[in-house]
Each structure stands twice: as structure tokens, then as C-alpha cells.
């Protein structure tokens, strides 16, 4: 019962709750939103225990959606409502359900206008995000991928900063540009496979089983998928929408953008782009290109972050660097690096999410995100300073925090297949230390020389309630990541096998 309906419940509940919020009195909106997102989290928690690591795709729910013969002579085109999770998507779903209640709680005092619409959109966004991670039908995946654009577009455009309209439309058009080409690629894929098998199905496993022999077309199809996901990640030359969107979005928008939306890109590579077209993805020119772009992302993101005067923009660019690690880990294609990449995806959601919350909290007090506007505030707001320091250290990758485990695994794994790249990427960790510690120094240490900063209030209990769960996750994953690694290992192994057929190299890489 639970296994069959949990994912559908996770998808439907936020949408239902959003409708309820829209008709309830405005002053209840935030409380209803918080309650709804907590219930969502509660529904998702048992997934952690009931998930069977070696069980492959589970919690599957499948029903026909659009099954009509599209063309006069053709076989039926089968589009199904088909959802499930494995060791890759499980954590993305849990991360989503964890971050959403915190985002709602973190918006309590930030959002003061049109509250009903805001919380309803946040919940609709939740549905969309869960949908992207659980969809096993490419049509459903595409629909969810686009559906989640609209709420985010509104969240940035209505509740964002001064330059919000520009940021919102840039975000929208960038994402749409990539995803529409992906739609054409999906259709071509379905048609080509359908011609061969006689079944025009968007089903993920059907496509996986019957792919191959696409010839030179495979490159173009891969390119379309690659573009859609690379824009979302974002990889180096496609990242320009990210700083704008992050900086202009309200706090919760930034948290969700960084924490979850960026992961959809890397998830797309793990789930679709690489398993569908392993030969193209691993062809030396493509693989080298991706690794180089990842390295550029790591170093360039770090260096640009270093010179940002705006704290929020600094964090935004640090995302580009972190996601570079994920891409490197995926393409290095060893068990450790893929697990590391998955872990970095989770860690980045937690640490960067917490950083965005912290910046948002101080912004609410001082209405400035400029690093230069602060200085020495550790004495005024000790609790804030302590948590900011701790979260920054985890983002740098200090041993004992989650950041270390993920990046270490990526580097260790990548070292086996791409030693030079791993060496260069390791310097990215140093760059991260430079930009974050330097920013930390300028914000919370140094002399307290601005009179406006002398009367700042420290964190309220509500804000602590937002941050402490994230701090707990940082410590937990940093000290004892084994339960997470155990749950993702079979899926990571299977991913590697699906990309690179089992051979001597693949087995040699196992632990």
C-alpha cells in the first residue's frame, strides 16, 4: 500500500495543498504552507527505511495516460504515468522534501506580499521537482521538467530583488531553450526505437533496452540532451543565467534553485543522457570536453566567487564550482567518483542551502548583501557567526563535515581514471577555502566599524529551527555517511555498468 502510492502521494499532495491555500484566508497561508510541507516530509521519511538498496527501481506506480495511435497507420504511442525511485533519485526526493519545509519556514518574515500565491507556488514547485526525480516515462519527465519552470519564474519575478524581471525571463528562456531541443530529441528517440520494435513508447526502460545502433544520429540526440542538462547544471559556458537568478530570487527561491533545481541537470546526466548514449558520452573528444569544462567550472567558479562584492553572488558562483565536481565525478565513472558525485549533490543542497538562508537572514536585518557592509559582527550576533562559520567550513570541505566526504570521494575516484584532472580539481578546494574564508573574515571578523551593525539582532528561534536541521545533516554526513553510501552503492554500480558494459576494468574498480 505505502510502496505503491507513496510517490503519487508525494506528487499530488503539494498540488492539493496549494489549492487549499489559495482559498484559505491569507493570514493562514504561511502556516498552512508549513504544515503541508511538513506532511510532505513525513510522507517521504519512511522511504528511507523501506528502500531496499539492492532492489533497483522501486515504489513503482504505473498507469496508462495517453495511449492512442497517433497516426493513421502507426502503432499506438504509449505515454504512461510511471514513477519510481532508485538509489539515485531516492536522495533527491528526500532532499526536496527536507528543503521545502525549511524554505517555507525561512520565508515567514521575508515574504510580506501576496502570501497565498507565494506559498501555493512553492508547493506546486515541490510537485514539479518530485515529478522530475521520479518520472520513468520521458513524456512525464519532460512535462514535469517544464512545469516546475513556471512557479520558479513567478517566485523570482514577483518576490525577487530590483532586477527581478530580467533575471526571471533569462532563467525561463535559457531553460526552455535547452529543454525544447531535448523534446525533439525525445521524440526522435521514441520514433526511431518505435520503428525498430513496433512500440512507440516513452517508457524509460523500453528505450534503454532497445537503444543502440543509432549511428551518427546518436551524437545529435546526445547533444540535445546535453544542452538541456548542461544549462540546468549549469556547466561553464551555459552558467550565465545562474548568478542573476540566484541573486534576484527571494531567499527560499535561491535555496531551492541551488539545492534542488541545479541537481536536476546532473540527475538528467545520470539517468538519461549517459545511459542512453554511452558510446557518445564516453567518446574521447566528448569525455575530454566535459572533463575540461568541469575543471573550468571548478576553477572559474571559484575565482569569480573570490572577487564578488555581493555575498549572495559569491555563493551563486561557488555553486558553479561545486557542480563542476559533480560533473567530474560522473564522467570519471568509477564507483567512488559516482558515489562522491551523488554525495556532493546532496551536500551542496544542504550547505549551500544553509548559506543562502544565512545570507537571507542577515539581509532581512540590514537590507544589504554587500560583504563590505558588514565586518566584525561576530560580537553582535555570535550565534549567527558560529553557524555561518560552521556551514562555510562544510562548504569548503573541512574533514568531519559532509563537504569533505563528497569531494574526497570524487577526487579519489577521479584519480584512477583522470589523474591530471583530479589534481587540477583538488586546487579547486583551495580556491574554495580562499573565497569563503576571506568572505568570512570580512563579514564576521575584522573590526566592527559600521555603526549600523552594532544593533543587529541574533538569530530568532524560528531561524534556528530552519538552520539546525541542516547543521545536523552536515555533521551526520560528515561523520557517518555509511547509511547513505550503502543505499546509493547498487544504483551507482548499476549506472556504471549501464554506461560501460561489465569488463575487466569495471570490476577492477570495485572496492
Amino acid at each position, binding site marked *: 500500500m505505502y510502496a505503491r502510492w507513496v510517490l503519487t502521494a508525494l506528487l499530488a499532495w503539494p498540488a492539493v495543498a496549494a489549492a487549499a491555500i489559495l482559498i484559505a484566508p491569507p493570514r493562514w497561508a504561511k502556516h498552512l504552507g508549513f504544515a503541508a510541507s511538513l506532511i510532505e516530509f513525513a510522507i517521504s521519511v519512511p522511504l528511507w527505511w523501506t528502500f531496499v538498496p539492492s532492489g533497483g527501481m522501486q515504489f513503482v506506480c504505473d498507469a496508462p495516460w495517453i495511449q492512442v495511435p497517433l497516426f*493513421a497507420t502507426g502503432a499506438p504511442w504509449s505515454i504512461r504515468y510511471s514513477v519510481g525511485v532508485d538509489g539515485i533519485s531516492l536522495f533527491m526526493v528526500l532532499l526536496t522534501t527536507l528543503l521545502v519545509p525549511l524554505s517555507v519556514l525561512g520565508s515567514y518574515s521575508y515574504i510580506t506580499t501576496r502570501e497565498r500565491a507565494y506559498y501555493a507556488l512553492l508547493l506546486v514547485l515541490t510537485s514539479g521537482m518530485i515529478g522530475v526525480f521520479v518520472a520513468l516515462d520521458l513524456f512525464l519527465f519532460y512535462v514535469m521538467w517544464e512545469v516546475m519552470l513556471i512557479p520558479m519564474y513567478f517566485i523570482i519575478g514577483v518576490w525577487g530583488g530590483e532586477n527581478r524581471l530580467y533575471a*526571471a525571463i533569462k532563467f525561463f528562456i535559457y531553460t526552455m531553450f535547452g529543454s525544447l531541443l531535448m523534446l525533439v530529441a525525445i521524440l526522435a528517440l521514441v520514433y526511431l526505437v518505435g520503428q525498430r520494435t513496433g512500440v512507440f513508447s516513452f517508457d524509460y526502460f523500453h528505450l534503454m533496452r532497445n537503444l543502440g545502433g543509432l549511428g551518427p544520429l546518436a551524437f545529435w540526440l546526445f547533444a540535445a540532451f546535453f544542452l538541456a542538462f548542461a544549462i540546468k547544471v549549469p556547466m561553464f559556458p551555459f552558467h550565465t543565467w545562474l548568478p542573476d537568478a540566484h541573486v534576484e530570487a527571494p531567499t527560499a527561491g535561491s535555496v531551492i534553485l541551488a539545492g534542488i533545481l541545479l541537481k536536476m541537470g546532473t540527475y538528467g546526466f545520470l539517468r538519461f543522457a549517459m545511459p542512453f548514449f554511452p558510446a557518445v558520452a564516453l567518446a574521447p573528444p566528448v569525455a575530454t570536453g566535459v572533463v575540461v569544462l568541469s575543471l573550468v567550472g571548478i576553477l572559474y567558479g571559484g575565482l569569480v566567487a573570490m572577487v564578488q562584492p555581493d555575498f549572495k553572488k559569491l555563493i551563486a558562483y561557488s555553486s558553479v564550482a561545486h557542480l563542476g565536481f559533480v560533473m567530474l565525478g560522473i564522467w570519471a565513472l568509477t564507483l567512488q567518483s559516482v558515489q562522491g558525485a551523488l554525495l556532493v549533490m546532496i551536500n551542496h543542497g544542504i550547505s549551500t542551502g544553509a548559506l543562502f538562508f544565512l545570507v537571507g537572514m542577515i539581509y532581512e536585518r540590514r537590507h544589504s548583501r554587500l560583504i563590505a557592509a558588514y565586518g566584525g559582527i561576530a560580537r553582535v550576533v555570535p550565534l549567527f557567526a558560529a553557524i555561518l562559520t560552521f556551514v562555510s567550513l562544510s562548504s569548503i570541505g573541512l574533514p568531519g563535515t559532509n563537504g569533505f566526504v563528497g569531494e574526497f570521494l570524487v577526487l579519489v575516484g577521479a584519480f584512477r581514471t583522470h589523474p591530471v584532472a583530479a589534481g587540477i580539481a583538488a586546487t579547486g578546494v583551495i580556491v574554495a577555502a580562499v573565497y569563503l574564508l576571506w568572505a568570512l573574515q570580512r563579514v564576521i571578523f575584522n573590526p566592527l566599524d559600521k555603526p549600523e551593525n552594532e544593533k543587529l539582532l541574533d538569530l530568532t528561534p524560528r531561524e534556528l529551527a530552519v538552520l539546525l536541521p541542516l547543521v545536523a545533516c552536515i555533521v551526520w554526513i560528515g561523520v557517518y555517511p555509511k547509511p547513505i553510501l550503502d543505499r546509493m552503492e547498487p544504483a551507482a554500480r548499476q549506472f556504471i555498468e549501464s554506461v560501460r558494459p561489465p569488463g575487466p576494468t569495471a570490476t577492477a574498480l570495485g572496492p
Partner: protein
Amino acid sequence: MILDLSSSRDLLLALLPELVLTGWSLVLLLVVAWRHRTAGDLRLTGWVTLAALASTAAAVWWLWWHTARAAPGPVPVMVAVDDFRFVTDWLFLGAAALTVLLSFDYLEREELLVPEYHVLIVFATLGMMLMGGGEDLMVIFLGLELLSVAVYVLAGINRESPSGAEAAFKYFLLGAFASGFLLYGIALVYGATGTTGLRAIGAQIGAGGGGTMLVSGLALLLIGFGFKIAAVPFHTWAPDVYDGSPTPVTAYMASGVKAAAFAALFRVLGEAFPAVAAWHQIVWWLAVATMVVGNLIALAQRTVKRMLAYSSVAHAGYLLVAVAAGPEPGSAAFLFYLVAYTLMTLGAFALLAAKGRHGERDVLIDDLAGLATRHPWLAFALAVCMLSLLGFPGTAGFIGKWYILAAATSAGQGVLAAVLVLTSVISAGYYLPVIMAMYMKPEPFAEAHVGMRLGRLGYAVVMVSVAGLLFFGVRPNRLLDLARTGGVGVQPAPGVPPAAPAVTAAHASTAR
């Protein structure tokens, strides 16, 4: 039910919908002759028109329900009896009915107390039905003229408005010009094949007839149709005419009139010229040019009405992609897209008509600023229409675009599909600012939207279109089925070799 068209009873049955509508149009003319003064008279003719459209739709339904088909025989068939005709008929009747509903308030508000308006709509709809069902070039031409003459008058029905006069005059001149091209084309095709029956032409060409005269005839036909569907480079009349006409008439032109021209084009290309390779390449370039130019110019527009006018040019480009995909996969996608397109265009124009008082021409996109706070439901409806026009998932516009893309990829037109999606991205640049203005910009001054009012019937139109867009966006199964069975109608006569796949493939490679 097989109808033997050589018996007069069966012939009358086959023409039942057209006959019903013609009968009603005469009744309407009589009503108008006596009652043409007050607003009450206008409402009366409006309701009579709706009754006429409903009973005609019922007649179509009756034929469809009995799966009426023409018996093969020696008698040359002038009007097709197939699902393509029935589905397009419903579409035309639905578009006309929504237009009439939309016009009640509009005509009263703008003091256009001319009940002939409704008669003209009925005549135009009759013309459309003949175009969608015409199985002979002459019938198609007659339908086109019946339609065009009525719409020329409709465009200039507001005699007080100089822009209306300009629109009518421009439309008339260029429309007459286009009709001339079409007629010349028909003459040349007749000269080459000795017949004007579509299937007979197809059979002639299949048997090896044709040559230069045929191809030049086909080219002239394409130019004529290109004018009517406002394909680039024959689109220059469209924005001015759409802009200058009364808004409900614009909605009717953008949805119904264009749909009729497309339906006829589909039938002509699919039934008469499946074996001629030349048009594939022409339509391919027409589609690309229309999508690119339409979207780019729409991007530069600042008034909502002109933006919608150019966007309708762009949508003609998307429909041309369905034509280029060939009649077999294309016609079904075309029918589905037309339903979605009619709903979203009518919804958008209905909302525009509500916003503008005596001057919806001048409504800038920025004039919609803050609409969401003042009229949340109207803003929501317009947002749904915009997203559907953009082809966003969850709306019928997306399923329609997806269907066209599926048709194009399955016909090996990958490049065309890519152009379609890339130009759709451009279209986000002009559809989104509407949403942006409504939701993300503050009201410029306190009473900015005070005059905005939508009558009860206008609300009905908007609700029907929004509900339809959302419903078919999530659950399109039945409509997809209807579109597919309707698409079967457009097939070459048995024994005529269809356009060889090699032709399409060769064309695709040269195009690339």
C-alpha cells in the same frame, strides 16, 4: 452508412449540414430585413445565429455518427463525405459560435448595431465548410469567395473607424489578388490534367500526366493559399487587417478563416498532388520563413493586438510544419493543433476586447500592468492563453505542438522540428512579458483597470477556452483520437502512389 451520390436523396443527405446552414442564413436575412434597429434586434439575430450553428453542428454529428461515406462510383464527387470534413466543420462552427458569443457585448459597447454582422458570420462559416469539404477545386474556390467576401465586409463593419476601413480595403485588394492567383492556378492545373476534381487530378498525375504547366499551376495555387493563411512572404496584409478589424472579427479571422484555408490546402496537397515532389520543398521553406519572421517581428511589437496578429503569423508557420510533414501524419496533428489554437486565440482576443474600451488597438503590453491584483481571474485566464500559445506543458497548446513535432520527426523532418522549437523559444520573449506585466509590475495608477469589463457571455467564452485548454492539456486522449480519425480523410485515391519516402528523405538531406 454509404451514400450513393448519384441518387438525389443521398446527395441531399451528404450536403445536409451545408443545406441546414443555408436555410438558416435565409431565415436570418428575413429577420434582419424587419428587425434591424435596436440592440434587442441584435441580440435576437445573435441567438438565431447560435441556433443555426448548433443545428448545423447536430447535422454534422448525425452524419459522423452514422460514419457516412460516399459510395465509389462514376459520379464525380464535389464534396467529400469523410471525417476530415466533419471535424473541420465542427471546428468552424465552434469558432463561429464563440465569436458570436463574444460579439454580443462588444457590438453593443461599440454601438455597432448592425444585425447583418451575424448574417455575414453565417455566410462566412458556410464558405469555410465548403472549403473544408471541397473535393473539387471549383467548390473550394467558391467556398473561399463566399468566405472572403463576407469577411471583407466584416473587417470594415465599423464604419466610424478609419482603421476598420483601411483594414477592409487592404484585405479586399490583397484578397482579390490572391483569389486571382488561385484561379489562375486552378486553370493551369485544369489545362494540364483536364479536370478540377482533386482525386481525379491525383489519378492523372499518378498515370504520368502533368509537366511544367501542372507545376506552375501548383505554384500559383500555393501562392494563393499562402496569402490566405498569411504565410511569409505573403503575410504583409495580416497585421494591418487584424489590427484594424473589430476584435471579435479579428479572433474569427485568426482562428476560423485561417483554419479553413489550411484545411483546403491540406486536401489539395494530400489528395491531388501527393505524387508531386515539388511542393515539399516549397512548403518547407514557407514554414521556416513564416516561423522565423513571424516570431521575430512579434518580438518587436508593443501593442497586444499587433503582437497577437504577428503571433498568428508565427502559428501559421507551425501549422505549415504539419503540412510539410505530409498528409498522413500531418493532418491529424493539424486538426488537433487547430482546436487548441482556436481556443487560445479566441480566449486571448476575448480578454483583449474586455480590456480595451473604444480602442483595444492601443492597448500596450505594459497597460496590463497590475491586472493580477485588480482582476485575478481575468489575469489567470490570459496567462493560461499565453502559456498555451507558448506551448507550455499542462495546456492544449503543448500537446498540439508536441503532436506536430511528433509528426515532423516521424516524417524525417528533424531540422524543421528543431526550427519549430527554437522559434518557440523566441516566442517566449513576447508571450511572457504579458504575464510579467500582469503579475510582476505594479498598477501604474489606481484606476488603471477600472474600465475592464467582460459581460456574462464573454465570460462564458473565456471559461470555455480556458477550461478546454487545461483539460485537453492533461487529458487529450479523446481529442487525439478524433483528430487521428479525421486525418484519415485526407488520403490520395486508392491506386495513386503516395509521395515516395525517398522523395522526403532526399528533400530532407538537401534542406540540411
